[in-house]
């Protein structure tokens, strides 16, 4: 008994988890190409990022001041808007909910700053890095391909706008960038969303984009 327990201890010491892409089985990085005009739709999963979910009362000036102090930026309080900051992006998700996307390296520091700044204020700060991922879609037919996947009218999606909408039978946050679209969603949706997107994009000419 004692022996097997110490074995478990040993294994735990050796346990060093590494974050793996939710689309790992598609081997995207080996199949990616330089983006060109030859294909109508390009897509790829973006590199791992730090995702922080922030909740609080947008009507409460104390909450707003505290988040501003921690982030060095005002959280977007206008529906369906996002902003770029020096640490990454801030997305409005709901009247009391925001998504902060930053680098894997700066996530912990930023989260600690937020938590400290929001101490005693009714709010929530949660690390969702393990639970979320992003797919970037670009190309001249990106909107055409996405129109097969979502009910949202892509013509209404101006740059920087973020909307929670459908993707097949699932839901995603869809955001327009200067060079295409960004799909932010739960990691467990990744397989379904990738296959769906690939199928929808195929008639327009689809390839996996080298995003770096």
């Amino acid at each position, binding site marked *: 008994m004692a022996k097997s327990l110490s074995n478990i201890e040993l294994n735990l010491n050796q346990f060093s988890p590494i974050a793996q892409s939710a689309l790992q089985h598609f081997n995207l990085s080996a199949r990616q190409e330089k983006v060109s005009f030859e294909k109508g739709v390009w897509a790829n999963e973006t590199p791992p990022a730090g995702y922080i979910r922030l909740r609080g009362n947008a009507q409460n000036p104390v909450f707003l001041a505290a988040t501003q102090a921690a982030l060095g930026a005002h959280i977007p309080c206008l*529906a369906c808007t996002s902003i770029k900051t020096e640490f990454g992006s801030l997305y409005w998700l*709901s*009247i009391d909910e925001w998504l902060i996307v930053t680098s894997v390296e700066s996530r912990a520091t930023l989260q600690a700053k937020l938590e400290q700044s929001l101490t005693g204020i009714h709010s929530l700060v949660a690390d969702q890095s393990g639970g979320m991922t992003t797919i970037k879609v670009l190309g001249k037919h990106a909107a055409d391909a996405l129109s097969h996947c979502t009910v*949202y009218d892509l013509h209404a999606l101006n740059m920087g706008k973020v909307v*929670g909408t459908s993707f097949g039978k699932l*839901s995603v946050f869809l955001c327009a960038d200067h060079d295409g679209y960004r799909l932010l969603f739960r990691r467990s949706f990744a397989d379904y969303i990738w296959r769906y997107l690939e199928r929808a994009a195929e008639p327009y000419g689809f390839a996996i984009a080298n995003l770096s």
Partner: protein
Amino acid sequence: MFVITCPHCCEAREEEEFHYEGEAFIARPVDPEAESDEAWGDYLFTKKNPKGWHWEMWNHATGCRKILVLKRNTANHIIAGSWTLSDARKEYDNERATA
């Protein structure tokens, strides 16, 4: 398919983004333990189900995930308006006061 304006997202969206949540403004008994089975069953299961104007709740399920209230005509599917719960309550009370 309905096009529903979400008062939180401030935008008209497809019905597919929403979940129906049933009749709005059914008052929950203040003391459920004290209710008779009939009264409690009535609270849970008896709905107005009118032909005509109906005040109902929807959840913007893929979007902001908040509840909103629609006034919808069940006979011709015309939507008179959509509000947040608190704004709709005022409209609803006004309508009942003037009826």
